[in-house]
Every structure is written in structure tokens, then in C-alpha cells.
């Protein structure tokens, strides 16, 4: 349909545009997070932003698993919690000193350290555990769930049930893991005093750099053949099977990566916020992770992180001004976006542009490569444009 010459001419710059757009996004993100925010925000606000950044790291993982992989995981709190509790256990042990016992255990329990706390005295084991424990749990769960071909709403419900079970389990263990109070009152982070504002800032920088790093990893995945394959599995799982792949393996990779990201986010959350408790890992927390992703645009690169930052910010400011009713705002925003912009806010610009183009030249021509390249990678699902309306409803 397209003449080869015109195609060549159109394709190369389009690719360059797409790449430079993403690079610009990274530069902008790095500038805002690493230069602008520390310069203009008070220590309190900066540490609040650090907390949002942790949520955004979880969101990047959900974008990978749900936006690209079609796995609506309503239980990322489990992995966030695993990473967070591992870090919190280490901090408690470090505060208690060598062979010491965390304060709450003397208060509620026998005062003896359970054997499974012991490994987390070591900083190395802790750092590995933060990544590996959520990843291994996700590997086990994923292997069990995806090999049995559980998907769609059933997967979503199952993942949510896991979050309920995990939070309930933690709440019941007062003597060993702090119960409903969770773990809190940390004084130091790998030898750095947590009451020192300079160290709080350092924590923010670590979280911000981690977010950018996770985005880079996900960007490479989206550009890779694996990224294409993941979309293929999301849209036509059976077809992929008939091409000789086992879709379960492809999904497990995305699920495990998302879990590892949530674990890392949880581990950064603990020193930044100073507490982790069952409330942070339960259903409400898990769903609020997903809301940001949906609002930002789940299938895009930056959408999930931006959406999560936005929702977390709105939540904080609205709950300051309207303590009892901010959840209504959050709910309304969610409903509006899902109803009118299922691709999320990131799809707003392409949708508007296409509408304007359609208004100028009403035609049924496929979108040109240039138009499509303006989105990063394959475009997010946009039932408004009509092309993928059918597959959207089944997702």
C-alpha cells in the first residue's frame, strides 16, 4: 500500500522521534526528581514525595504485568509487604544491636527471637531478600496459577484473596511480627541515623533513582521481542500456544518482575515512612496501587508511574483539605477515566490528535507509522478509536 521509498523515509525518523521522546521523558523525570524537587520542597514534603515514588515503583511493575501482560493483579500489596517487612525486620534488629531482640517482642512475646528473623541481621541477606523473597513467592504462585490457565477476573480475585490472607496472617502475629501495629520506630538505616534530615534526603534520592532505573528496565523490555510477545499473550493467549510458546512462562516473567519491583518499593517505603503494617499490604492498599496505573495509562511506559504519583499526591492534598471525603474524589476520577478514557490519561493526547485528524480528513486509512510511533511502542488500548474495542472488553 505504501510505496517502499516513502515508507523508508517515514520509518526512520519515526523511530528516532519515538526514542527521543522517551529519552526526553527520562531527562525530564530525572531533572524533576533529582534537581527540582529537592531544591524547592521542604524536608517534610520531600519525604512525602519519596513515599509517592515508592508507590510509583509498584505502579511500574503493575503496568508491566497488567498493562502489557493483561494480568490484573489486585494483590501487589503482598509483594510490597514482603519487601517492606524484610527491610523492617533488619532495621529492628540493627536497632536492637548484636544479639539484641526488638522491643515489641519483649512487650508482647517471650522475648526470644524467632529463628526466621535471624538471617535478616545480615545487611547482605536483607538486600537479597528484599528482591528475591517477593520474586520467589511470585514464581511459585505464578507457576501454580498460570499453568492452570487461571486468568482474567479469576486471577484478579485470586490475587486479591492473597492480599486479604497475607494481611490477616500478619495481623494475627503480634508477638513475632508486630501484629496490627506492624513494625515501626526505626532509628537507623544501615548505620545512618534516620532522624538526620540529610539522611532522609539521601533516602529520597535512592528511591528516585530506583524509580528511574525500573523505568529503564521496563523500557528495554517493551522494546524487546519479549515485550511484543507479552502483548501477544495478553491479546491472544491460545494463539501464542499454537506458535509453540508456553504462555505461562511468558506471564510468569512479567509477574515475577512486577513482584520484585513491589518488594523493592516496600523496602524503600519502610525507612522513608517509618512504619509498615498490615494496612500497607492489604486489599485497600493493593487496589490503590492499581488505581494510579489505570488513571495514568496502564499500557504506556510513563503512564503508570505518573498516574501513581498523581493519585498519591491528590490523595494527600485532598485528605488534608477534605479528611472524610477524599476517597469520593479518588473514586470519581477512577470512574471517569475508566468510562471515558480506558487507555488512561496518557492516551489523551493521541486520542485528541487522531480525532482532530479524523475531523480534517474522514478516512479509514490505517494510521501512518509516524502517528503510531508517537506513542511509545505499540499504542495503548483505545476503544474510543474503535479499532480494538472488541478485545478491550474481554481484557
Amino acid at each position, binding site marked *: 500500500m505504501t510505496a517502499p521509498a516513502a515508507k523508508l523515509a517515514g520509518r526512520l525518523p519515526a523511530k528516532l522521534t519515538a526514542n527521543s521522546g522517551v529519552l526526553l521523558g527520562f531527562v525530564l523525570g530525572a531533572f524533576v526528581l533529582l534537581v527540582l524537587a529537592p531544591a524547592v520542597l521542604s524536608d517534610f514534603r520531600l519525604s512525602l514525595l519519596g513515599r509517592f515514588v515508592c508507590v510509583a515503583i509498584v505502579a511500574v511493575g503493575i503496568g508491566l504485568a497488567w498493562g502489557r501482560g493483561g494480568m490484573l493483579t489486585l494483590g501487589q500489596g503482598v509483594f510490597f509487604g514482603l519487601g517492606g517487612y524484610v527491610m523492617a525486620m533488619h532495621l529492628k534488629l540493627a536497632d536492637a544491636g548484636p544479639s539484641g531482640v526488638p522491643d515489641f517482642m519483649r512487650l508482647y512475646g517471650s522475648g526470644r527471637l524467632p529463628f526466621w528473623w535471624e538471617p535478616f541481621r545480615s545487611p547482605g541477606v536483607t538486600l537479597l531478600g528484599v528482591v528475591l523473597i517477593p520474586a520467589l513467592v511470585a514464581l511459585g504462585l505464578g507457576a501454580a496459577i498460570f499453568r492452570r490457565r487461571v486468568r482474567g477476573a479469576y486471577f484478579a480475585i485470586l490475587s486479591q484473596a492473597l492480599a486479604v490472607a497475607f494481611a490477616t496472617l500478619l495481623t494475627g502475629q503480634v508477638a513475632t511480627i508486630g501484629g496490627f501495629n506492624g513494625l515501626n520506630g526505626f532509628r537507623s538505616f544501615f548505620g545512618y541515623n534516620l532522624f538526620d534530615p540529610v539522611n532522609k534526603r539521601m533516602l529520597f534520592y535512592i528511591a528516585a533513582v530506583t524509580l528511574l532505573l525500573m523505568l529503564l528496565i521496563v523500557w528495554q*523490555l517493551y522494546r524487546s*521481542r519479549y515485550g*511484543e*510477545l507479552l502483548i501477544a499473550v495478553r491479546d491472544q493467549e491460545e494463539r501464542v*500456544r499454537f506458535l509453540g510458546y508456553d504462555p505461562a512462562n511468558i506471564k510468569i516473567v512479567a509477574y515475577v518482575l512486577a513482584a520484585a519491583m513491589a518488594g523493592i518499593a516496600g523496602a524503600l517505603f519502610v525507612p522513608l515512612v517509618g512504619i509498615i503494617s498490615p494496612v500497607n499490604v492489604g486489599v485497600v492498599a493493593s487496589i490503590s496501587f492499581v488505581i494510579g496505573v489505570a488513571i495514568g495509562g496502564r499500557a504506556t511506559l510513563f503512564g503508570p508511574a505518573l498516574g501513581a504519583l498523581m493519585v498519591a499526591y491528590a490523595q494527600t492534598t485532598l485528605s488534608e483539605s477534605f479528611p472524610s471525603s477524599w476517597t469520593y474524589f479518588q473514586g470519581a476520577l477512577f470512574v471517569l477515566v475508566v468510562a471515558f478514557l480506558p487507555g488512561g490519561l496518557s492516551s489523551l493526547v493521541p486520542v485528541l490528535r487522531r480525532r482532530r485528524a479524523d475531523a480534517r480528513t474522514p478516512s479509514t486509512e490505517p494510521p501512518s507509522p509516524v502517528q503510531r510511533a508517537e506513542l511509545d511502542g505499540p499504542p495503548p488500548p483505545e476503544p474510543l478509536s474503535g479499532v480494538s474495542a472488541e478485545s478491550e472488553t474481554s481484557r
Partner: protein
Amino acid sequence: MTMNSDYLELSDVRVVFDGLVAVDGVSMTVRQGDLRFLIGPNGAGKTTLADAITGLAPATGSARFGRTELIGMKVHRIARLGIGRTFQTASVFEELTVLQNLDIAAGAGRKPLSLLRRRSSVPPEVEEAMGSVGLTGLRDTQAGVLAHGQKQWLEIGMLLVQNAQVLLLDEPVAGMSTDERVQTGELLVRIGAERIVIVVEHDMDFMRSFAASVTVLHAGKVLSEGTVAQVQADPRVQEVYLGRAEVVQ
């Protein structure tokens, strides 16, 4: 594939769904270079037979591709042996481009780590298949916006890059224009020379024009088998197609 695997041999294949016998002891052999049409009235078990061969429907009996027994194997393992199929409704990856669709089809044997890299160049087999099915000019077009016929060709192209030795095509020309049917038929004859191609089809004109051999299924059993002329002359076939006899004639 090896020299031993240039035929597909079914013997006594049975598929039972909740007491309903969908395929009732089908035996047939299709050799390389054959272009076999599988016809029969609705509910004769044509698609179910294809499901049984590709591991989608639980079956008993034997389906051997060369020396390999397919019954009981997992779907993706059967696919990796070189047995590919298409479906009645074209199922391509709509949000990916023609090139990406074919590239995925070519990649089942890729090493896991190599998947994490970008595609640096178009694999030659992808380029070749794109030419075979006439979609080279649409390589960067999203599959979702292709015409129905083009989607079917893309699916056949995906089987080609998959290096499928056995192609099971379920109603490949349904909904196609006359021109597209002729082009598809010629494509099947061309690719069928070196492969085993089995076409499930309702379109009798299409069958007459391109079939090398025909198997007629009825109520899950093989009713008749042979060349187009032999099958047409078979009184049992005429009886089954009674009322539609003029279509067969």
C-alpha cells in the same frame, strides 16, 4: 524435519465430549505434497479432528507425525514439532504489526535471554514469508486494521515462518472475495508442494479447484476418501449431501 516425518497418520482417533462422540474412530494418512481437503456437513467433526491433532481436544487413538505420537502431547510441544494451524476466525495479534506478528511466529525456538533484546534485523524467513503471502508492503501496518483476507494470509504466513511441516487450515477462504480465493488457493498449492496441508472447508467450488485429495467426514466417521472425482461419484457422499447434491456435483 527428518525424512521420516513427511507424513501424518491417524488411526482410530476418537474424541468424546461428555458422552457425545464428536470424532468416532477416524483413520487417514496424508503425505507430503498432498493438499487434502476435509469436508462434511456441519457437526461432522472436521474442526474437532483438527483440535485432536493439535492437542486442543482430548483424544484417544493415534496420530503420528513421522515417528512421533501426538495424542497426549501438550499444545505448544506439538506446535514446536512443526504442526501449525489456523482458526475459523482469524486470530492474529491485532495490536502488533504484520512484521511483529511474523517475528513472534518465527521465534518459538529462541533462547529466553535473546528475547530480552530488540530485534536488530528482520530474520530472512520472516522476509520470505511476508513475500509469499503478499504482505511485504504492509509490514508496518497493525494487524488489527488488515482486511479479513489479509489476516488469513498473515496467519498462513505465521505458519510458514514457524516452519510448520503440517498445516491445518480451518476454513481459510471464508468471507473472501473470488479473487482472494483464487490467490489463497494458488498459495496453498505452492506451499503444499513441500508440506502436508489439510484444509477444512465448506466451499465446494474452492475444493474442486484446488484439492489434490478429499476426505469426507460424516457423524465423526470417514465416509469416503479419494480424489475429487472419486468422492463426487461416491453414492454415500451424495446421500449425505442430499439436498445439497447440486453443490457437490
